């Protein structure tokens, strides 16, 4: 019983990071109508960037964060321009295969870099962000935990306001519903999709900062399993929905934390799979996900 609250805290931490990555999936899917399989790997690139800036270059922390966000945003922009834009209008399968290719390319480049530079793929951070902690009874909540939750909540609300209240946000909604009609309004569809990728990647960078602060490691393959779970979170919450992505992320994170903590040792190893079982049940019960809307697509 004394494991309950700490497990919940673990789940919220993990879930918040999933949520930030799920936001990127859901926005890109909602607006560009494509599954950016390489999105998870962007957080890996973000984490390596942090590692290099902190451990090797000894840059001040604030600068490190800005560099990580810039690197990821530029990466998202370039990947879209070079790999996805030329395929716009071709079969979704071709786009998906390309995205998987980009994912492996990023992983291999990171592996190559880490192996040449550090002699090993997996690297550990020394704890770089210490924000103290709060003790309530026999439960300890660290400052980093609070930072993770608050950041995720603020970003969710910020994204919802951005989409609903700004001109660019409205353009995104228009592109999401009907690219041709959006163009007839004077919306530059290519630019709008680029902005979507940049925002999604910037959110992945923030996820990587929070992840590194909490779990303090980086490796070339960290993004792929992470990405799949975040994608599952986006689908769980209803792909295309911003609050859906966050709720989905938190639920997947909590399920994972609880199955790791409470399942007996031998089953425990399968805790990664457990979240997917819940996802499948969800999709059988409500195919559009928790907050997903039934939409009719126009050609």
């Amino acid at each position, binding site marked *: 019983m004394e494991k309950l609250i700490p497990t919940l805290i673990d789940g919220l931490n993990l879930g918040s990071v999933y949520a930030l990555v799920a936001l990127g999936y859901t926005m890109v899917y909602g607006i560009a109508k494509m599954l950016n399989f390489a999105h998870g790997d962007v957080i890996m690139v973000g984490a390596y960037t942090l590692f290099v800036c902190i451990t090797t270059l000894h840059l001040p922390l604030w600068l490190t964060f800005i560099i990580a966000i810039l690197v990821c945003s530029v990466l998202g922009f370039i990947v879209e321009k070079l790999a996805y834009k030329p395929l716009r209008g071709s079969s979704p399968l071709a786009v998906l295969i390309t995205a998987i290719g980009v994912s492996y390319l990023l992983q291999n480049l990171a592996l190559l870099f880490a192996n040449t530079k550090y002699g090993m793929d997996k690297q550990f951070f020394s704890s770089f962000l210490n924000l103290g902690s709060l003790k309530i009874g026999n439960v300890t909540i660290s400052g980093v935990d609070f930072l993770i939750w608050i950041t995720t909540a603020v970003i969710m609300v910020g994204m919802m306001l951005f989409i609903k209240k700004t001109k660019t946000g409205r353009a995104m909604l228009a592109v999401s519903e009907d690219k041709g009609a959006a163009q*007839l*309004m004077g919306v530059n569809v290519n630019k709008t999709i680029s902005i979507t990728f940049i925002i999604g990647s910037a959110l992945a960078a923030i996820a990587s900062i929070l992840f590194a602060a909490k779990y303090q490691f980086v490796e070339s393959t960290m993004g792929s399993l992470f990405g799949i779970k975040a994608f599952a979170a986006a689908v769980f919450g209803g792909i295309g929905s911003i609050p859906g992505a966050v709720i989905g992320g938190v639920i997947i994170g909590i399920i994972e934390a609880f199955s790791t903590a409470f399942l007996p040792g031998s089953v425990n190893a399968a805790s990664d799979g457990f979240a997917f079982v819940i996802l499948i049940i969800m999709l059988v019960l409500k195919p559009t996900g928790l907050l997903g809307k039934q939409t009719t697509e126009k050609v």
Partner: protein
Amino acid sequence: MLLEIKDLSVYYGVIEAIKNVSFSVEEGEIIALIGANGAGKTTILHTISGLVSAKSGSIKLSGKEITKTPAHKIVEMGIAQVPEGRRIFSQLSVFENLKLGAYTRNSQAEINESLETVFSRFPRLKERKNQVAGTLSGGEQQMLAMGRALMSKPKIMLLDEPSMGLSPLLVSEIFDIIKSINKSGTTVLLVEQNAKKALSIANHAYVLETGKIVLGGKSEDLINNDSVKKAYLGE
């Protein structure tokens, strides 16, 4: 000449949908383009708006070449389209749809002014300002699509089958509105299958058959033309 189309050819893959089409629209006019299903009417409007690219030929707006101009810039230059099937943003509110219509404009005061004009022209849109557009009736959706196009303050408005799927009474209402939009200074290029109605409000008209213009002239002459009567007016 406000809009001048010369020797326009458009292909879908290897299929030539538009063959050497030329016509022009003078400022202040209503021009009708009539033709049967699949004649190429929508293709011509999409090419003017930049959604489809021309294989050859030229499109000029006030003498300026726009054949290769990207779609989003064409709106800014003063061409608005009310597309076939309306294509309103069904998940957004009426108000948000109208705001998207003014996407290329920056002055909030001017946008508000246009909004007032649109609301006074379509009082029903004002009443339903916050309604989700997808729940509007067919007639209301057509009005929203027209209002949305007007929000860009166009020099010329392209209308693709505005009467489609509407009751005869509403069709008359829509045509009255088109006339009045034209009276207040917007040039109109109207695509219609309802040839009778279209010819009744247009100054000039062209008849399109399988991608070619086969006939053109003053509306009153076309109304009395025997082959037009037989093929398009059901007489």
